[in-house]
């Protein structure tokens, strides 16, 4: 802007500015309103400044490129992590579901086997009862 140009900010017609801004922004514009707006030198200057501002912003936005490949692999990693998590969750859920739904099996019967080695011998008798034919061996009251 030149120093000899009139101070126009205060005189700018806002409606006309909105029309030229919409044009610059690729929005729908009514041709009659645009013609009227462009008749105003202050609005024309405003339009030029919008473009200059856009260029300045564009230059400011020239950022160093980001390593988006890393980001892409990051997305893939998320996919793999999600798959791994799904497997772990389904295994855990399956385990607990099994615990809750399967009836408890009967306790296994325990049989005890005693194996006697060849060296094992029966204990000696403490009392020997001899059975003789014709003797009544049944117990009688008062006897032990």
């Amino acid at each position: 802007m030149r120093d000899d140009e009139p101070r126009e900010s205060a005189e700018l017609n806002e409606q006309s500015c909105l029309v030229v801004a919409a044009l610059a922004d690729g929005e729908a514009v009514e041709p009659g309103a645009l013609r009227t707006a462009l008749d105003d030198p202050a609005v024309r200057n405003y339009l030029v400044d919008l473009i200059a501002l856009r260029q300045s912003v564009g230059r400011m936005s020239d950022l160093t490129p980001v390593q988006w490949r890393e980001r892409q692999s990051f997305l893939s990693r998320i996919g793999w992590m999600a798959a791994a998590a799904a497997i772990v969750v389904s295994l855990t859920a399956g385990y607990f579901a099994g615990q809750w739904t399967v009836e408890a099996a009967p306790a296994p019967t325990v049989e005890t086997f005693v194996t006697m080695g060849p060296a094992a011998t029966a204990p000696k008798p403490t009392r020997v009862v001899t059975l003789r034919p014709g003797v009544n061996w049944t117990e009688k009251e008062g006897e032990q």
Partner: protein
Amino acid sequence: MADADVLFTAHRDGIFRYLCRIVGQEDARELTQEVFLRVTRTEVPETDDGGRRAWLFRIARNLALNHVRDDRRRGVAVELKDGSAAPATQAIAVALREALDLLNPVDRDVFLMREVSGLSYEEISFACQLTPDAVRSRLHRARLQLRGALKGSPDARADPSWR
């Protein structure tokens, strides 16, 4: 996941550029990733490209607002950074950054979404939860303020675009 990949490829740069102006390049990278992480966790709305883009920018804006709020709470200065601008344009970039910093935060968001990321008025309206008329009005106000700041800046006067 396929939707997230497509959205990521189509909109990562726009989101990143917008976030750069709000939180700086380093944090913008992380926040951009966070935006798309959120996308993978939610259902992408059944709408057209513009609608999805607006939806992404709404997520990005909310994340940026939270980030700035957290930084303020921690007492971290939020610096608007950019990359390696050419020396001739560096002065303008500095003046512009300072002027952006002075904008009302919503006006700045509206301006950045339009000028840095190329969103339409309707998309900005959805992303910032404003009416289209409010978007026009805030955009106009931001532009007037930035224009005034650059015209008043001696550095900008040295630039042919602002002579």
